[in-house]
């Protein structure tokens, strides 16, 4: 018997309205692929406040919306995290830190863009300092639209992420390895060759 949670007052459309599957206690499924089971129900988030959207995260991890009941915890160092929420707009300065942090995270890792700004620039699309399309610089696995999205949207995203992990549809980190030249070209264009050459090379891994 799988557990079922009811999500109330959701702001998204699609097939998530109402019931989400939480099959944490399904031992057979867990034993079949323990890695996926661990991956899904122990998503640790890098606690990096990249922009204004971070204001929506403390309510999520505190008592009212309680993300910990799904295993989602904020971690201080990227070495221990596997989910990176880009919360809010990305400025050029922040992109440097985001790239270094993303590359320090171990595989498998998921990058979720939170807010409208990483999608297409959002509110600041005419600014000289905003990165308008984040997926040209880093591989984004999912988007959460809104300015700002509500905390429930983060839960929707997490549950959708579970489904995608089950279906092996999130391979952002693999795409990053394969197309590293493409991403590096774009990063160099914005951040300069000197910076790109000074950061340590990303750890390559065979999956």
């Amino acid at each position, binding site marked *: 018997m799988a557990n079922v949670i009811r999500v109330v007052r959701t702001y998204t459309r699609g097939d998530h309205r109402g019931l989400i599957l939480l099959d944490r206690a399904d031992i057979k499924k867990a034993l079949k692929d323990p890695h996926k089971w661990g991956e899904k129900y122990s998503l640790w988030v890098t606690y*990096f406040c990249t922009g204004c959207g971070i204001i929506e995260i403390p309510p999520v991890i505190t008592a009212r919306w309680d993300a910990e009941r799904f295993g989602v915890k904020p971690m201080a*160092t990227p070495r221990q995290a596997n989910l990176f929420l880009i919360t809010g707009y990305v400025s050029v300065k922040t992109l440097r830190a985001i790239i270094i942090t993303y590359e*320090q995270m171990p595989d498998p890792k998921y990058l979720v863009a939170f807010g409208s700004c990483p999608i297409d620039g959002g509110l600041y699309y005419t600014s000289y300092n905003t990165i308008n399309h984040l997926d040209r610089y880093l591989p984004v696995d999912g988007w959460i639209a809104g300015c700002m999205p509500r905390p429930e949207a983060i839960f929707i995203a997490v549950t959708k992420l579970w489904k995608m992990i089950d279906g092996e549809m999130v391979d952002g980190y693999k795409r990053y390895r394969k197309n590293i030249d493409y991403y590096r070209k774009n990063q160099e264009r914005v951040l300069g060759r000197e910076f790109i050459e000074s950061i340590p090379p990303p750890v390559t891994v065979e999956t």
Partner: protein
Amino acid sequence: MMLVTILLISFVGAGVTYLVGKSIPRLRGIVASLVALLPLILLAFLYGRVISIDYASVPFLDINLSLRLTPLSWLFAVSIVVLGGLAVIFSTGYMRGKERPDYYYFMMLLVNGAMLGIVLSGDFFSFYIFWELMSWSTYLLISYRGGESLGAGMKYIIMSVIGSSAMLLAIASLYVSYGTLEISSLATALQSASIGYALFALMMFTIAFGIKNAVLPLHTWLPDAYAEAVSPFTAVLSGMLTRMGVYGFLLIMYAIMGFGLLDMFSYGPINYNIILAWAGALTIVIPTFIALLQNDAKKLLAWHGIGQGGYMILGIAFGSTLGIAGGIFHTLNHAIYIVLLFLVVAAVEYRTGGKRSLDELGGLIKRMPVSFVAGLAGISGLIGVPLTNGFVSKWLIYKTLVTEQYPFLAFAALVGTWGTILSVFKFLHNIFLGQLPEQYKDVEEVPWTMRAPMIVLTILIVLFGVLPGIPLRAISAIQTHLGMTPLQTSLFGMPKALGELNTLNIFFAVLAAGLVAYAVFSLARRSKRVSQYDNYAAGARVPVGQYQHSVKFYDQADRLIRPYLRDRIDDFYSWIAGVSTDFFEQLGKIYTGNVNTYATWIVLFVAVLIFMGLLGWKP
């Protein structure tokens, strides 16, 4: 005859090394090492024998100078030869390129020979000669480099001379009272001495050996002396030379005076042993905590030298079977790991161009892994991690203190471990762990002549930790010879009556657990090695050369305890020195260089004499 040969090899060999060094420099190191290690072969043949021979006579004093070998002398002699030999072998690499190497080897071998003479002497006349020989050759080696070392050497020699004078006073009075200086005859003669006289002799010797072994409050010469001496010599200094004080204590307290006499120095519950034990306990606690405030690697280890000496005095003064065995064993163990640690510091100095400040090094594990493993073994022994030799000797001391119901002494001994842990971890971390500075990224491991002694000592630490029965058998022989019930141990465990310690079981358990952990570790994915610059820095690039936390390592604890740990005794002695210097400077104003003044002094003096003669005083 063998004993005389041993001493002859040591002293003549020193001179031969000097000459060989002057003529054929390439052979200097080989000859020195041979001279240092040759007595080991002779000593190996002498195991278990008790010899006493006369080798000279002093007609005007009507005494014969003798040498004797007892189990106690044997253990100390073997330690001296082995550790001194390893230090000499290490120096062959270390002294390359330094100035005045012939002089250095000559002095090192002379010190070794003098220490052998001390432990092998059978009468107090030879004992005193060799003691003085050792003292001033130490002074010459401490002030080898000149400059600041001269001050350190001066402090050392003044305190050492005070100690030697006290000892000379006692020896002279013993000669006058009993007409002989033979140790064995004095042992029987002193049994019938008056308590006051025996106490006087004991106190004089205690001052001498206390200064040598740096028991609080007589320890102030040690930190500067160790820091300024040449590093391989500091190893010998800390390992064996200072422990000549321990040998002296054992000699005077148990070989000569014996338990019966010692028991008589009591006033109610307080007696000499307890006072000495408390001095030892204080010597453990205060210096090990002062050590964690130090920023100079050698000063840090020097303060530990003082602290660990406290364990030896505590064990020996306590007087129970376990205590004395623990104290002697700790002397041996301490010698091994402190020599190892000073050699590690010397190795680091050799490769980094003389750096020994803990604020400027870091990350050397990546370039000098063998030195790191040696350093790790050394500090494990110093802390007393189980499976190292330091643990077994400390366990013996703790066990006796707890079972004999002296919990406060036991607490002092136990809390010293924590000061040790903090300070030696700072030592290891600031030198070997953390980020490697750019200027040291090409240093190499030390050459083989320097690696071999470190590896040998590391093996000894673990060997004596897992199979403590090997040295404990020799120590039981010492205890039997001194007339007390010996410690009975098997190769790796204590018998049931003593309580639980089975080092071999623990060793196998740790090994098995480690193998299982390693197997589980390898089951997961292999890890990829990353450079030290691929590090968490809050999203920024790692700032090169500025990403190491080693300065003010224990800042918060430092601020809390530093006000209580000033070395006030050192301040006190410096104050006395200052006052005396002023006084004597004032006194020196008598010499004005003016003949008229001298004439006045003479006239005045004659006047005083006449006056006193008138009063009826006859000189």
